[in-house]
């Protein structure tokens, strides 16, 4: 795809792109991965603490404790996002704060806060899933395909 794009450009901008690629700052992959590992692991560790508390105090099982844990984590995310702390964590940790469910919560909540100036219906209501919508759409659609294939195999294939 990149080559196709290049062909349509005048020679001067092709030269510029080559120059730009040369000068591009190499992302410190290992350092970023270590940061992502530590922060992402830490968030999951907190999640484990919360879900253990739910199993211990509220009669959830290992499999069902994920649900209230998710809700609790998103609640914590709301506070961190509102006070502007989550942004700083995100700059430090990259994927470490984006991949856990807190990143999903942050995407929803920050969109909601950001667009409140446009009004609650068109601003907050219309934009709340602006960033996180793709996750829901592709999650639901792929889950639909997977579950459909599996159900057909089970029902007619005798799996």
């Amino acid at each position: 795809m990149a080559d196709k794009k290049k062909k349509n450009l005048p020679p001067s901008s092709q030269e510029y792109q080559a120059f730009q690629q040369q000068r591009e700052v190499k992302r410190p992959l290992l350092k970023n991965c270590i940061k992502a590992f530590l922060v992402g692991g830490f968030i999951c560790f907190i999640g484990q603490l919360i879900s253990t508390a739910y199993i211990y105090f509220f009669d959830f099982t290992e499999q069902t404790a994920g649900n209230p844990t998710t809700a609790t984590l998103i609640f914590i995310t709301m506070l961190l996002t509102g006070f502007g702390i989550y942004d700083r964590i995100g700059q430090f940790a990259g994927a470490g704060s984006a991949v856990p469910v807190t990143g999903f919560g942050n995407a929803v909540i920050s969109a909601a806060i950001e667009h409140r100036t446009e009004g609650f219906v068109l601003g907050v209501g219309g934009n709340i899933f602006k960033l996180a919508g793709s996750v829901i759409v592709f999650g639901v659609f792929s889950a639909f395909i997977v579950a459909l294939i599996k159900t057909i195999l089970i029902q007619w294939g005798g799996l």
Partner: protein
Amino acid sequence: MIFFWAFVVGGIICVIGQIMFDVFKLTPGHTLSILVVVGAILDGFGLYEPLIDFAGAGATVPITSFGNSLVHGAMAEAEKHGLVGVITGMFEVTSSGISAAIIFGMIGALIFKPKG
């Protein structure tokens, strides 16, 4: 021990996300969407459940578990009602993530003012 594995497995999934950011130069939106689809497919092969048993929150907290629980809800309902259950059961298990996001998003918008 499960705390240790939660940390390690959750960390590894985040490293995979970071590699997708840095090596393949994907946007966060693309990365998260791919991870959700991967989670759904893994559950289709029955591989995600053992991971949850092994790593606890290390597997349920990353966004991959969203795809997993979507498939789970759909499959549970499909066993009862056949094909139509795939659609009606989709959000059965994973409702808390989405409803919590909407509720706390709304509360956040009510309480906090945008910064910067």
